[in-house]
């Protein structure tokens, strides 16, 4: 029996509250949503898992990561390569090397392999990244993003580049992704409130001081980095297992900025912030996209305004940074709000 600390127990309360919100949104969509809305909400949940994976490293170590979409891509492609039936791979990847087209595995094993591959890659990269100072580390993560993307584009015999990698069986539905997102929330909260998480956050506030107290900052950063990568791989798998087709484009800069904006708006220091930011931007952007198409509102025929969603996204980042750099939640998790209101 693992004994949880006081902060972890209050973390579990917070996680339970967030889980309740996730379940309500999921169930409501499942029963009342159209096919389109289910797809939309599903992708919001996938992005939520991405943002949570991002939060584990960025929120605790406070180093900006720009490579998260690449790790999501690695997870998605690895799982897709394993799970897609041979007969489809023979058609879509006729030139695949190393016998990649000659086998297929069940979804669970495929996911496990994808997670292990992503984790090992993240570990090897992490050995270097965690030793760098903040901007240097950010640049290397940027380099990782560019390199991984270039590999996806270049090895068309394996990844099909910007063309669709199709034929992935649809394994997951909305229920699955809600469950996995809840699991991710719990993991993130438990890590945040664990001794490691607390030490890591302390070292982000005062690196020299924490080191003087015996905090092994590189080790802790590495743990957070790999844990984040695993969660990102899971997000990639959820993405591939629902859509059935993937391509390199969604795992590049646009997605990096989108998910960063979500985390920043909600507040990168807390898991609650990650959840809040993801839903605000997911649903907010959907509204803006509607405006983009030039609808008729209140009898006024609005012009088509391509780019409006991008402007909104950028503005969210700029305004958050200017007015409230720690995001909406700041350092507060959901249960502290609840407690304050109750008493």
């Amino acid at each position, binding site marked *: 029996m693992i004994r949880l600390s006081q902060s972890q127990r209050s973390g579990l309360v917070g996680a339970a509250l967030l889980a309740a919100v996730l379940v309500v949104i999921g169930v409501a969509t499942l029963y009342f949503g159209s096919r389109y809305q289910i797809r939309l909400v599903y992708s919001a949940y996938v992005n939520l898992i991405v943002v949570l994976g991002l939060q584990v490293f960025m929120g605790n170590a*406070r*180093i*900006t990561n720009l490579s998260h979409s690449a790790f999501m891509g690695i997870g998605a492609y690895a799982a897709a390569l394993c799970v897609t039936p041979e007969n489809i791979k023979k058609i879509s990847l006729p030139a695949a090397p190393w016998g990649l087209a000659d086998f297929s595995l069940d979804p669970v094993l495929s996911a496990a392999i994808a997670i292990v591959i992503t984790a090992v890659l993240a570990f090897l990269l992490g050995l*270097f990244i965690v*030793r*760098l*100072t*903040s*901007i*240097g580390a*950010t*640049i*290397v993560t*940027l*380099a*990782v993003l*560019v*390199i991984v993307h*270039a*590999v996806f*584009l*270049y090895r068309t015999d394996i990844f099909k580049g910007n063309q669709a990698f199709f034929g992935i069986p649809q394994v997951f539905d909305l229920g699955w992704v809600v469950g996995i997102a809840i699991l991710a929330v719990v993991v993130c909260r438990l890590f945040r409130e664990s001794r490691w998480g607390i030490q890591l956050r302390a070292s982000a506030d005062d*690196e*020299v001081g924490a080191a003087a107290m015996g905090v092994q900052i590189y080790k802790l950063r590495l743990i957070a980095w790999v844990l984040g990568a695993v969660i990102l791989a899971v997000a990639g798998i959820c993405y591939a297992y629902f859509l059935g087709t993937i391509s390199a484009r969604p795992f590049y800069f646009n997605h990096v*900025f989108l998910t*960063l*904006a979500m985390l*920043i708006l909600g507040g990168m220091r807390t898991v609650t912030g990650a959840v809040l930011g993801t839903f605000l931007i997911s649903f907010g952007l959907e509204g803006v996209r509607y405006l983009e198409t030039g609808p008729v509102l209140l009898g006024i025929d609005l012009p088509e*305004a*391509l*780019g*409006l*969603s*991008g*402007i909104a*996204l*950028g*503005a*969210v*980042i*700029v305004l958050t*940074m*200017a*007015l409230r*750099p720690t995001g909406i939640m700041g350092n507060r998790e959901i249960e502290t709000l609840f407690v304050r209101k109750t008493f």
Partner: protein
Amino acid sequence: MEYVIQQGLNALSFGAEYALLALGLAIVFSIMGLVNFAHGEIIAVGGYTMVAFAALAIGNPVIVMAGAVIAAMLASLTLERVAFRPVRKADPTTGLLTAFGVSIVLQNVFLMFVSPRPIAVTSLYFLDWPIEIAGIRLASLQVFETLTTIVVIVALMLFLRRTVLGLAVRAASLDFEMVRLTGIKANRVFAMAFLISGLLAGLACIFIMARRGSVDPHLGFDPVLKAFVACVVGGFGSLPGAVLGGFLLGAVEVAMLVMLPQSLGGMTDAFVFMIVALILIWRPDGILSPAIEKGDKL
């Protein structure tokens, strides 16, 4: 031998462009720790200014070029006032993310109000013609670009050494508060840094446009990504480092183009970034980084 010289000159002109842009990033970073990712959009502002001149049927190349540079400088100043002033004292991460946000906003403003597609600008084609010296074939544009960069570096050096404001900019990279304590207005120092940064972006814009002949919302993204890398490699915040990083990156890129087999052509960027990552792992603060002290005062 001629081939080597030819490629060396190519590397020089590649490097010159990166050095121009990297200097623009470094001068802002040195005084406020801001990694200005929106620098690329400043270049695009210059490009769209050329489009505007074309639309007004103003073809005089001097006016077009001066207009683009001035527009870039004004845009840079405006960004400082509107977007970066609130995060002036914030940590580098906050600044970096703000700059990302600004960059996204501007790209989409171009997309929304001008066009998502490239617009041709032909007024600067005249800058580019082939020349041949002693059997070495060059583009005139490469020569202009390298010369301009050299002139700019010398001028910048003179400014930073001979004028009070230049001294203040250098001193501010070490201790901004102390600069204020000599009575120099902080706003003037920031404005000057962004003005110079915009000027450099505007000059780079002329060369980029003369070569590409078109502008689209993402015009500046790739060049600035490279310049960013050059800065990091040279040592962020170090002006000599930015120049060194720029030319080094130019050399690496040309070497990649020459040495990588044709089949790996698509991987040039990947290799460039890999080398960058390796340099950073070797020297985490860049090659010519200014010393940074962690911890408390004495």
